């Protein structure tokens, strides 16, 4: 298929970001992989020059085997109707740090607070990094891959006793456990 609109957008962005790799995934979707220090410049040009006014979401993925967090920023353009996913990688530590985008886009405030309490990444320069959803939580950041929620729930909460014979037979035969 001929992605004329998406390719013309990439041609506008490529000259200033020669160390980024652009790819057209399918109709109306473009993927960009950037080094992490260039993200702020990219975001400023997205908003002020190339008219991508809507920040749809900021997602975080925990690649525990690579030892990195991946942050994905989703930008949408109301006129051209194209979505750009900008992906960066930062090292995985006890408390990782990254720059904030909340002075450019207001929706970023909620997503950054959410990522802070779920993954433990601190966004420097943000006005409000307090906890929002997990206000009484004292454990580790729950969305990290080394936190197993099943073990935690089985140890922390008390369950109702329910051991009928058919369940005991099934567990003895080794089934019923995923």
């Amino acid at each position: 298929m001929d992605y004329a609109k998406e390719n013309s957008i990439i041609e506008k962005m490529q000259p200033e970001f020669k160390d980024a790799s652009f790819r057209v995934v399918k109709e109306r979707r473009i993927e960009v992989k950037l080094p992490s220090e260039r993200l702020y410049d990219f975001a400023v040009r997205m908003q002020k020059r190339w008219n991508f006014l809507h920040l749809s979401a900021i997602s975080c993925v925990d690649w525990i085997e690579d030892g990195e967090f991946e942050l994905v920023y989703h930008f949408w353009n109301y006129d051209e109707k194209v979505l750009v996913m900008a992906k960066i990688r930062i090292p995985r530590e006890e408390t990782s740090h990254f720059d904030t985008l909340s002075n450019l886009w207001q929706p970023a405030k909620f997503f950054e607070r959410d990522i802070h309490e779920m993954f433990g990444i601190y966004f420097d320069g943000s006005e409000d990094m307090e906890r929002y959803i997990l206000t009484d939580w004292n454990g580790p950041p729950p969305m990290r891959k080394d936190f197993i929620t099943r073990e935690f729930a089985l140890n922390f909460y008390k369950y109702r006793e329910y051991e009928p014979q058919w369940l005991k037979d099934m567990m003895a035969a080794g089934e019923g456990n995923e």
Partner: protein
Amino acid sequence: MSKKEEVRDYEIFIGPNHPGIEGNFSLKLKLLGDKIISAKTDAGYLHRGFEKLMEERLFIQNIAIVCRICVPDPDPNENNYARAIEEIAGIEVPERAKWIRTLVLELSRLASHLFTIGGHAATTGLYALPNWTVADRDRILELFEELTGGRVYHIYQLPGGVRRDFPDGFGKRVLEVMDYIESRLGDYDDLAINNALFIKRATGIGVLTKEQAISWGVTGPDLRACGVASDVRKDDPYEVYDKLDFEIPTQTEGDAYARMIVRRREMEQSISIVRQIIDKIPSGPVWNKIPNPLKWKVPAGDAYVRTESSKGEFAYYMVSDGGRKPYRVHVRGASTTQGVHVLENLLVGSRIEDASQVMFSLDACPPEVDR
């Protein structure tokens, strides 16, 4: 001789146990007299840890829990989940299944708008309208029960199609219900929407300008009430929306009354879409079977899918690493922008008696914020 009194501000909580709050949510307000000078929202009462639960279950097991993320409007969740897997794994969906999915989405949008219109009128004291709209919404829930087996949570849209086909005579019953609801729209107008008292209560409340709405990330009917004609069904079409003929209603004032008008006119558009679907639906199979669902592996990749739910833009970002369970699913609810920071900004400067109406007219649904 008047004694100079010191006027101080005070703080109140509109806590989770309150009929003026939609769902389980709380607000901390600072007041001077009866004007609000600062507001903070407090969510997290409905947190279940969905994104973590989805990582510990197989792909086919997640379909049962994914619809519980948004309670009044559960079908966009199932649609997003199914389409994300289809995009990563490259599965084709039969044509009839796409038409049935669009029908289910539009019926769910009608039911949710009926609920919201009633709730909005109830905050101004007009309690007759929710009694009517909730009872009429029950007819749509009966249609869902006949088609899928459940009134509220359907578990109907799978990756590869839908679970089963229409029962006999279903199309005729859908058209009867649509005729009934269309005849009631005139009654709702006479009772609430053209009611002089309601107009006086609702104009000028919670005003959003066009620039504020775009820069604060507002989507859905709240954005269309400010004058921006943007809808995911037209901009980023999915299922069969590019083959259907419908309009996008907009208003320009951006206050609570304009949002009510936009929702009312969207209901008319939904009724016309449902009639077109029943008229033009092709025949054929409804499901491309997944081979051996308990041992099914999805290849590595990622996808970002968006739907237009009744509250705004609803999106899922799914990452798969080639295994039997999803690696990461990020849910972007429509109320993450409207229910949190936009609500805080709009409450400053309004009065305490309008706080409840601002929240209901923005349609901020707490389960989407908390997941």
